[in-house]
C-alpha cells in the first residue's frame, strides 16, 4: 500500500478526531471552570441533533436553520441543567456534580427515546463525490467540518482570551475563592460558561448527526472517547483538547493496518492510561497540585 493509503488513514483519523474533539472541547470547559467531568456532554449533542432533525421534518431544508435549532436547543438544555441542578451543586466537590451528570445523561437519553423512539433519522444532504488533490481523495464535507471545528475553537478561544468575561472565566478556573474576593460575578461566569458549552455541543451534535445517523444513543457513544481526549489535552487548554482528540484519532486509524479495527477504541483508552501514568497532568496540561 502506497503513501496515499496512509495519508487517507491520517485524514480519516483527523476527521474523526475533530468530531470527537468538539465534544472534548465542551468537556474541557466544564472541567476547567466547573471542575467536574460532565457526562451530559454526549446527550446535549444528541438533543441538538434531534432539534436539527425536527426542523428538517417540519419541511425546512436549510442546513443553517437546522444548525441554528441544534445550537439553540443544546444551549437551552445546558442552561436548564445548570440552573436546576449544577448550580445547587457548586462547592460540593467533583463527585456530586459528576454523579448528577451521569444521572441526567441517562435521564435525558431515556426521555428522548421515550418520545422520539429508536428509529434512526438522517440529515438529507446530497452525496458529494471526492475531489483529487495530489492523488489523495478529499471530501468537501471534511473541509466544511474542519472549517466549522476551527471556527468553533477560535470562537471559544477568543471569548476565553480576548473578552472580559473570558478573563473572568479563567480567573474562576484558576482560583474560585480569589476570583470571588476580587469582585468577579461568579454566577454570571458560570451562566456564560454553560451557554458556551451548549453552543459547542450543539455544533458537535449537528456535525455528528450529519456524519452519522441521529439516534438516542449517538452522543452517549461519543462520551468516553471525548473524555479521554479532554483528559489527554489537559484541563484549561481548549485547543489542547481538540488537538489531543486529533492525535488520538490519527493514532487509532494509523494503527489499524497492524492492530486491526476491533482494538481501535481500546487503543485510545490505553494511550490515555499510559500517558497519564507518565504525565499525570495530560499532554498539554499544567501540572497542578493534587487537592
Amino acid at each position, binding site marked *: 500500500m502506497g503513501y496515499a493509503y496512509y495519508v487517507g488513514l491520517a485524514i480519516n483519523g483527523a476527521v474523526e478526531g475533530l468530531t470527537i474533539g468538539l465534544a472534548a472541547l465542551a468537556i474541557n470547559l466544564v472541567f476547567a471552570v466547573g471542575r467536574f467531568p460532565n457526562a451530559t456532554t454526549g446527550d446535549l449533542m444528541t438533543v441538538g441533533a434531534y432539534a436539527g432533525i425536527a426542523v428538517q421534518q417540519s419541511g425546512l431544508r436549510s442546513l443553517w436553520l437546522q444548525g441554528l435549532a441544534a445550537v439553540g436547543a443544546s444551549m437551552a438544555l445546558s442552561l436548564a441543567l445548570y440552573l436546576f*441542578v449544577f448550580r445547587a*451543586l457548586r462547592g460540593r466537590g*467533583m463527585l*456530586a456534580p459528576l454523579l448528577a451528570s451521569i444521572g441526567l445523561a441517562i*435521564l435525558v437519553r431515556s426521555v428522548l427515546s421515550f418520545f422520539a423512539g429508536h428509529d434512526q433519522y438522517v440529515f438529507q444532504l446530497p452525496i458529494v463525490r471526492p475531489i483529487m488533490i495530489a492523488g489523495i481523495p478529499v471530501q468537501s464535507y471534511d473541509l466544511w467540518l474542519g472549517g466549522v471545528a476551527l471556527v468553533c475553537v477560535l470562537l471559544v478561544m477568543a471569548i476565553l482570551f480576548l473578552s472580559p468575561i473570558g478573563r473572568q472565566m479563567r480567573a474562576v478556573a484558576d482560583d474560585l475563592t480569589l476570583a470571588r474576593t476580587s469582585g468577579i460575578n461568579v454566577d454570571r461566569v458560570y451562566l456564560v460558561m454553560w451557554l458556551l458549552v451548549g453552543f459547542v455541543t450543539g455544533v458537535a451534535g449537528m456535525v455528528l448527526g450529519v456524519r452519522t445517523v441521529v439516534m438516542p444513543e449517538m452522543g452517549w457513544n461519543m462520551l468516553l472517547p471525548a*473524555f*479521554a481526549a479532554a483528559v489527554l489535552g489537559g484541563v484549561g487548554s481548549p485547543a489542547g483538547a481538540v488537538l489531543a482528540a486529533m492525535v488520538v484519532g490519527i493514532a487509532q486509524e494509523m494503527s489499524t493496518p497492524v492492530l486491526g479495527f476491533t482494538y481501535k477504541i*481500546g487503543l485510545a483508552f490505553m494511550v490515555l*492510561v499510559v500517558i497519564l501514568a507518565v504525565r499525570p497532568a495530560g499532554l498539554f496540561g499544567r501540572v497542578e497540585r493534587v*487537592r
Partner: protein
Amino acid sequence: MLAYITAVAIVFCIYALLTLSLNLHFGFTGLINFGHVGFFAIGAYAAALCSLNGMPYVVGFTAAAALAALAAWPLGLLALRLREDYLAIVTLAFSEIVRVVITAEEWLTNGVQGLPGIPRPFASLGIGGNAELAYLALVVTAVVLAILLIRHLVRSPFGRLIQAIRDDEVAVKALGKNPAGVKVRVFMIGAAIAGIAGALYAHYMNYIVPDQFLPLVTFYVWMAMILGGAGSISGSLVGAGVLIGILEGSRVVRDLLPNVMQVEMASLRLALVGLLLVLFVLYRPNGLMVKRDES
C-alpha cells in the same frame, strides 16, 4: 412463586456484593472508582473459563478474586498519582479496556459469541427448588462474608487508618504512616469482592458475553451506593434492593400505567434510575441509611 423470589434474591445478592465493594472503595476509603464493572467482568470470565476447562469451583472463585485484585493493583498505583477527576475517567476507561480485550481475544474468551454452558454448582440437586436454594445460600454466605470482612477492615487499626486517610491524608502522612500502600490494598480487596460477584453471576447465568459488562452496570451500582448511603453497610443492601426493585418491579408499574407501550417501558425504567441518582445527589447526598449530621 418461591422459585421466582429465590431467583430475584440471588440477583439482589450479586448486586449487593458489587455495591458493598464499591462502598469499601469510595464510602470507607474515598477512592473514586468508575470501573467497577471491569472487576466484575474479570471475575465472571475467570470463573467461567476455569470451570469450563474442568477445574473445581474453588479454583474458579479463587482465580476470579485473584485476577480482579491483580487488575486493580496498577490501577491503585495510578490512583495515587492522579487528580480524582482524572481518576474517575481512567477507571471508566479501564473497564472499557477490559471489555474490548475480552471481545477481541477470541482464542480465550470466544469473543462476541460469549461463553455458553458454564456449569452451575449444586446442579446435582436437580432443577427447581433445592439447587436454587442451595445457590441462594451460597450467595448469601458470600454477602455475609463480605460484610464481615468490610466491618473487620473498618474497625481494625488498619480500618481506622483507612478512614483517617479519607478524612485527612496529610495528617496521616505526618504521623509516619504510608497511606499509599493502604489505598492500594483496599482497592485490591474491593476489586476481589467484585470479582467474586462476577464469578457468582457467571455460574448463575450459565452464559456470559461482553455486552453484559457495559459501564451502565457501574453507574447502576453507584446509584445503589449513593441511594443507600456512602459508608453504610446497611445502606448498600438497601440501595441494591431499591435498584433490583426498579429493574424487576416494572411489571407492577405496567399494571398501573396500562397505556404505556411495552417498548416504552424500557425507557421509563432507565429514566427512573437516572432521576433517582440526580435527586439523591441534590437532596439526600448522604443516602437513605446515613444520618444527616454524619458525613
